[in-house]
């Protein structure tokens, strides 16, 4: 028995030595890969730009960096696409790099982080904007002042808006047809909205929800707060900013503009806030909308495009999403958010911020200017994955393939409702967001939950705003 085993053992041993040698050879062959020695541009020469990796496909990213190199032959740029599923993953990465002293020079920042970066990390662009004002005139003329104002903090400008998304209402046309109703008119109000949901519900059957929304800062409860003329944090504007408005905008656009938003005093127990929650709670009680789920809206495109949901709030970024999900251009449409006390909309915007730790500030500024050029943005946003900040890019040809028919709504939201503004995002935005989502969840989890949850929200917000970040 041992005899018969022996050659097998020897064979096995031989085989395992062979495998070991092959593995070693493999490791040796891939040494450059393991140590990243084969990666071009990891040295200190390049300008490092951190972008949101999931927003722009690799080909477009290459175009972005190649184009910049072609324009500035002496300047190397290295795009670092952060593969984050949300802004907190994105921050985790940037913060770790800042802690290690390997911070990027330029970072893509959305409304949620504008004031945090401005207050702690960013460089005001004022002097550079003034210096290059002739070059930038065309850009500002093409960008709505509301977007620019959302990138200001205490009188200074920190970013040039690249993209934005306002919360409009998407409607599934198959559901509308089944319910024998038309796309609502632009000036519809909250009661029209409720009536529409009721009509949809009647023919919907089980497994159908007229209105669906995700519990998040952008597009959650906030659009309703805005429509009712209120906010969780009292809103005011910082003084200043005239230098910008006077240089780039005609008088009618200047009116009411200031030096950026201030969100300070929490007002979660205000009557109008409570009204909004009571309204949403009543929709849930009547089974016209589902309780909002937390987290990302990953499945939302799917349930909307397959007619399980009739209406949902979303922005221009959905046009591209629905197209990839196989929805035909005439299978859905878009309309403004309904009027309540006002028809003010909410939006989120994003652009590149210059970090004060950067040793290549001039080069970084060149990149920021480059990133808002029309030809660059056109290449970047070819798939309609967002709404470009430039008005001239929102045109019929862009939405020819993806729809919706009512595409002008995307930019007109800004023009028609000049009070439209950014989601509340003070420097403590992350905490405000977490508290808002948390208490919105409890407020709507059962019928009598609204008042106690709002009282909690109020006291938690007060604590959060007092605490220095």
């Amino acid at each position, binding site marked *: 028995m041992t005899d018969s085993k022996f050659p097998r053992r020897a064979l096995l041993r031989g085989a395992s030595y062979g495998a070991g040698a092959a*593995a070693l050879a493999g490791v040796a062959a891939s040494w450059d890969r393991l140590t*990243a020695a084969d990666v071009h541009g990891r040295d200190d020469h390049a300008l490092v730009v951190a972008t949101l990796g999931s927003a*722009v496909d690799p080909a477009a990213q290459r175009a972005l960096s190649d184009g910049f190199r072609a324009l500035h032959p002496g300047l190397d740029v290295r795009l670092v696409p952060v593969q984050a*599923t949300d802004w907190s993953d994105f921050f985790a990465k940037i913060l770790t*790099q800042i802690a*290690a002293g*390997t911070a990027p020079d330029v970072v893509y920042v959305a409304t949620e982080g504008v004031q945090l970066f401005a207050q702690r990390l960013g460089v005001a662009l004022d002097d550079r904007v003034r210096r290059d004002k002739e070059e930038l005139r065309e850009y500002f003329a093409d960008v709505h002042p509301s977007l620019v104002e959302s990138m200001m903090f205490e009188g200074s400008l920190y970013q040039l808006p690249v993209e934005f998304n306002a919360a409009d209402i998407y409607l599934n046309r198959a559901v509308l047809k089944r319910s024998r109703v038309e796309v609502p008119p632009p000036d519809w109000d909250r009661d029209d909205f409720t009536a529409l949901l009721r009509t949809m519900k009647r023919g919907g059957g089980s497994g159908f929800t007229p209105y669906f929304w995700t519990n998040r800062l952008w597009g959650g409860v906030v659009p309703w707060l805005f429509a009712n003329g209120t906010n969780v944090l009292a809103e005011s504007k910082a003084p200043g900013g005239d230098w910008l408005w006077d240089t780039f905008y005609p008088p009618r656009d200047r009116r009411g503009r200031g030096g950026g938003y201030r969100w300070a005093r929490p007002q979660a127990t205000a009557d109008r806030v409570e009204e909004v929650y009571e309204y949403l709670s009543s929709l849930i009680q009547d089974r016209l909308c589902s309780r909002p789920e937390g987290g990302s809206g990953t499945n939302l*495109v799917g*349930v909307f495009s397959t007619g399980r949901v009739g209406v949902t709030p979303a922005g221009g970024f959905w046009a591209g999403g629905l197209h990839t999900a196989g929805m035909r251009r005439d299978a859905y449409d878009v309309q403004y958010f309904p009027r309540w006390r006002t028809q003010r909309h909410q939006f989120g915007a994003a652009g590149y911020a210059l970090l004060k730790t950067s040793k290549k500030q001039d080069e970084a500024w060149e990149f920021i200017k480059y990133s808002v050029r029309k030809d660059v943005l056109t290449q970047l946003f070819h798939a309609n994955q*967002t709404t470009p900040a430039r008005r001239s890019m929102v045109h019929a040809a862009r939405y020819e393939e993806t729809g919706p028919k009512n595409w002008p709504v995307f930019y007109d939201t800004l023009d028609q409702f000049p009070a439209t503004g950014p989601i509340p995002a003070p420097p403590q935005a992350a905490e405000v967001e977490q508290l808002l989502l948390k208490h919105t969840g409890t407020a709507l989890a059962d019928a009598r939950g609204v008042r106690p949850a709002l009282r909690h929200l109020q006291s938690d917000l007060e604590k959060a705003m007092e605490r220095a970040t």
Partner: protein
Amino acid sequence: MNRMKYVLASWTRVAGLTAVALLTLGPVIWTVSTSFRAPAESFDLPPRIIPGHATTEAYHQVFAQIDVWLLALNSTLVTALIAVGQMITAGLAGYAFARLEFRFKKPLFGLVLATMMVPVQVTIVPVFLLLKPMGLTDTLLGLIIPAWPTAFGTFLMRQYFLGMPKDLGEAALIDGAGPWRIFRSVYAPLATPGLAIIGVLAFNYHWNEFFRPLILETSTQNFTLPLGLVSLQGNLGTGSISVVLAGVVLSMIPAMAVFVIGQRPLREGITSAGVNR
């Protein structure tokens, strides 16, 4: 009589196990079948196992949107080297803790075990700061080397060696074998199944790892599969669910292969260890 009872009992067993297996595989089957569906069908109820119009479009999309081969190469290098490294470190340390006598054994074992209890979210910033002077940030080695010491693997191998009959080693000792010989020719050959478990688990865990690569890797060339797959989710989660799931299905194939291959030594070894008793 007894036989009939046995047959009946074994049918109940098979039925019970089958029910659990269906519940377990249900979501996986849904994932696979949805990845072959046209997006418009992806949320059908009742969920259809065989898609009405099977299409590989989602897979073409995956290959068009991300560099699957480079990502897979990186992931393979990282997970294979972590798995092999862990088998070595855990096999050696586990044996020392189980079968060798030395001072501070208990506190040292406690220390190793304690490292299992620290969530990666707590240590990631200090680890990044440590890797920087070593020149290991934004390299694959920076992912691999810190993952070599494995508290869980050490723990498992210690239990494993403890479970082996002591008489074997004692017999060899009486025959005059030194500690190295005892390890080399008595216990090490019996350790294969334990090491296989560690290899398989290390592969699974690190193949799907997201947070460490997210923080440590910045160049696209150094991305691993889970990082690459994020792109498929699209801006603000607007990616098609079929495409996202096609990416998930592609990425689970290698892990599945490792499990299938690892199963054999795992089973054989366990049985032989049982017979030796």
